[in-house]
């Protein structure tokens, strides 16, 4: 009986909430961004700002806790609190709060891109456009860069600020092979000569899916045929067929004869660490550095990229619709975009991640500092990375590849 009552009340509340007025915070943020920047900064004084972000990398965590937080405290008197939570759950929380009409949330900044941003934007979980109000963005970034305008094909509309960018690279052990393959055809013949020494995470995994998109790019006439156009299954049918047949052809020579694919990148990394497979891969061209230092990867690990290039993407900071500290959030994001913060992020001490900042727009001495950063031996040169950069395709390709891969490759 009590259970019934509870169920009933939950349904009732859900209905009430659905009828209720959805919050009017969107206007609040645009009112804030209209104020002069100095007013925003002084209003942010003494606030506590909660940054919700995925917390599975100690380098990233330390960058926030040990580098950024003390400086924010000192310069702006802002208490930055990092809260570890998966982005999917953050969005679910916001979604429910939106439904319940909770206008005073606990989240002030979120870290996201791609599918998550698309989700958040479509369900209007974000506070609104703010990027152009950030002085550091105006001064040091190429504001018209398509990488900031669209995020996996979704128009950003100024609702998220570019925080960093990463490129996809493959890793190999120099002591085991001299020259890594330079194209997918070469990879195929390498796999034939070295059966069982290569595999990729399955399509559900973020990295595995990106690997498959690389194959798709490679099989298209031009990679731009994929990333410049929205998903049209008929148009890319021929490319898709080639992609699946390529994957089937290499399958029998993969690790465990392709009967099992690693579920996550972490699994593939462990296989590589144990020498079971000789290659691994992943977003963030510098990610091998910290793993080498920790002794997980052999010291002879180097990275390589193959024709037609390597996919890269930008990740962003955004403000949820029910933040209670819009001024504090804006000040923190502006700080995260500053040359100093980006320089510290680029250095391999904490995170070692590439910056979306425009080097040409920096003052001379700052530019020198950026150029002087030694990212480590396992990281490819900036020139090589830039030359081979390929943008992400639309987010819908990710889902499509997930489904198709299971049908075409796993079930064959």
């Amino acid at each position: 009986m009590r259970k019934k009552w509870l169920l009933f009340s939950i349904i009732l509340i859900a209905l009430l909430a659905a009828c209720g007025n959805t919050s009017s915070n969107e206007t609040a943020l645009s009112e804030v961004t209209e104020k002069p920047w100095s007013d925003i900064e002084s209003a942010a004084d003494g606030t506590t700002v909660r940054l919700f972000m995925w917390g599975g990398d100690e380098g990233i965590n330390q960058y926030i806790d040990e580098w950024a937080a003390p400086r924010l405290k000192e310069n702006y008197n802002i208490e930055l609190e990092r809260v570890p939570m998966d982005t999917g759950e953050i969005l679910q929380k916001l979604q429910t709060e939106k439904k319940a009409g909770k206008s005073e949330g606990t989240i002030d900044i979120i870290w996201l891109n791609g599918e998550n941003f698309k989700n958040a934007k479509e369900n209007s979980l974000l506070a609104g456009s703010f990027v152009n109000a950030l002085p550091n963005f105006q001064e040091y970034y190429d504001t018209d860069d398509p990488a900031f305008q669209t995020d996996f094909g979704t128009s950003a509309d100024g609702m998220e600020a570019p925080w960093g960018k990463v490129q996809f690279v493959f890793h190999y052990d120099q002591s085991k092979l001299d020259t890594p393959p330079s194209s997918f055809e070469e990879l195929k013949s390498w796999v034939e000569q070295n059966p069982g020494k290569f595999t990729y995470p399955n399509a559900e995994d973020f990295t595995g899916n990106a690997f498959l998109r690389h194959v798709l790019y490679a099989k298209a006439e031009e990679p731009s045929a994929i990333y410049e156009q929205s998903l049209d299954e008929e148009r890319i049918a021929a490319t898709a067929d080639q992609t699946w047949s390529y994957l089937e052809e290499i399958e029998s020579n993969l690790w465990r004869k392709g009967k099992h694919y690693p579920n996550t990148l972490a699994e593939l990394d462990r296989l590589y660490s144990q020498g079971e497979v000789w290659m691994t891969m992943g977003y963030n061209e510098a990610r091998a550095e910290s793993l080498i230092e920790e002794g997980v990867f052999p010291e002879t690990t180097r990275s390589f990229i193959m024709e037609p290039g390597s996919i890269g993407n930008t990740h962003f900071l955004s403000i949820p619709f029910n933040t209670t500290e819009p001024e504090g959030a804006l000040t923190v994001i502006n700080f995260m975009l500053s040359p100093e913060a980006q320089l510290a992020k680029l250095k391999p001490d904490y995170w070692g991640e590439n910056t979306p900042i425009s080097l040409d727009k920096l003052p001379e001495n700052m530019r020198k500092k950026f150029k002087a950063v030694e990212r480590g031996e396992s990281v490819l040169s900036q020139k090589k990375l830039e030359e081979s950069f390929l943008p992400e395709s639309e987010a819908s390709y990710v889902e499509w590849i997930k489904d198709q891969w299971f049908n075409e490759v796993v079930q064959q």
Partner: protein
Amino acid sequence: MNIKKMTFVMLALLLFIMPVLLLLLQSVSSPWRFQSGESFHFQIESFQVLWSAANLLEATLWSIVVGAGVLILNMAVGIAAGKALSTLSFKGKPLLEALFLSPVLIPVLAVAMGLHLFMIQAGLADTALGVILIHLVPTIPYSIRIFHNSYAQLGKHMLEQPVVLGAGPLQQLFTVELPLMKPAIRSVTFLTIVISLSQYAITSIIGGGRIVTLPMIFFPFLDTANTSVMAAFAVWFAMIPLAMYIIVEAFILLLPYSRMPWRNTR
């Protein structure tokens, strides 16, 4: 030592002691690579990573607070419901028993969204109390079950005797029932704490990042390939149920008719 005892010791060694030892070793050594030609490398860096996680102590404290709250509520509800189920008979009892078990059968995540909505309305979202309440969902069915069985085992006569002798319900609980149900109390303690401690998704949704428990720091690290750091986390993780178990064991000693371990038992 007879053969049965031998097999028990061997099995325990193989299945329990060895894995734990391996875990401990892994936590204080560098990640081990097959055929890397390196031998055991002692290091405490993984524990330094652990300590440097800024909110580790806070999270540990929250985990203990939440765990203790969940345990106390579980004991209260479990004992009351268990006793009622085993002593009373009424219409629709099987149905009620099935209802009590239903939270185990329905995935918590399926109802988390609705419960979150409810908690926001009730002002319980983002509070420790809310987290404790949501942790009751996956734990309480077990507690009720365990105490139900335990009361059934005590038998009707054991429960009638104190009433005949004129004990009130509370006196009866503390002098007869609890001392006789020590194994049940131990099982409930361990089960409840371990289940509560490993709730990631519902804690993060209901706790909303205000209540950061250990799994919220620990689980994202499952994505790393660094097995040493994970081992160090796992060792730290195991300390909490162990500590809680010892505390509860101390409380059990306070019950009447407990044999004090330091007393001569001849």
